[in-house]
């Protein structure tokens, strides 16, 4: 039952932060979608808004934590260049993937997409958290604003999901150890 520091950071980045964000999405979307005055009482609205604000800010913070740990802690281990003459590339995931045509696309397409698109998630999630906090219960009476906020929320989820799915596959094929 041992785990290296690198594996620990990878788990923290992907399984704790990343997965928590993706799992929280369904609850957040349901909360935003059902925020309609005809569906809930005033008391229900106030109780739901408090939960929604906390949930949205938590998601935004988790999204930032995910991209920061991923980019500045885990990614350098992924892209580390092997010393000249290295034949065992298992400790150098990027070069291990590129060494074979059958796995190279996981880097060229998967990792290249993941590492860039992921940064849109915390930006979009922060916008959503701010908008929910700013309007509060009044958001229930503003369908236009709610729709725009939901589009940004879905964008945050989709970009995080792309990053999460490719991250899981790449770490399966060329794990960081």
């Amino acid at each position, binding site marked *: 039952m041992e785990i290296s520091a690198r594996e620990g950071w990878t788990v923290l980045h992907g399984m704790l932060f990343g997965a928590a964000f993706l799992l929280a999405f369904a609850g957040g979307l349901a909360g935003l979608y059902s925020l309609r005055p005809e569906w809930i009482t005033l008391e229900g609205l106030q109780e739901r808004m408090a939960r929604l604000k906390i949930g949205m800010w938590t998601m935004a913070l988790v999204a930032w934590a995910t991209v920061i740990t991923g980019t500045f802690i885990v990614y350098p281990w992924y892209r580390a260049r092997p010393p000249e003459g290295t034949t065992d590339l298992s400790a150098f995931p990027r070069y291990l993937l590129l060494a074979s045509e059958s796995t190279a696309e996981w880097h060229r397409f998967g990792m290249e997409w993941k590492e860039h698109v992921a940064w849109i998630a915390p930006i979009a999630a922060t916008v959503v958290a701010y908008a929910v906090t700013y309007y509060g219960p009044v958001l229930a009476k503003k369908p236009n604003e709610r729709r725009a906020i939901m589009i940004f929320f879905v964008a945050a989820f989709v*970009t995080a999901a792309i990053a999460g799915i490719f991250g899981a596959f790449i770490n399966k094929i060329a794990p960081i150890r």
Partner: protein
Amino acid sequence: MMDRATEQDKPNGPVAAALLAGGIGAAAMGVVTTLAAASESFAQSLAWIPAVGPLTGKSLVSTIVFFLAWLVLHFRFRGKEVNFNQIVTISLVLLVIGLLGTFPPFFELFAGE
């Protein structure tokens, strides 16, 4: 009831500013990523932390652009009622630019040098 009335009157400017800044931040990531693909020298100029490579500059530039744009737009739109649909349309176009610019088959079209 007073609180509700006050909240009902909240101008949409601050939220429009946040949405537009979000679009600008996303678009910045797309544009910087595409420019880095087009120019190796530009990409290397973004490698502020050698171990992280050009992703350092790409991620930090887009984050800084997002927060700076938000700050500027917030003070510009604060307390104002703006054309929300127009701002949302522009924000979504910018968001799409961000998504497109970070999609490898797109930015590799510009791969040069």
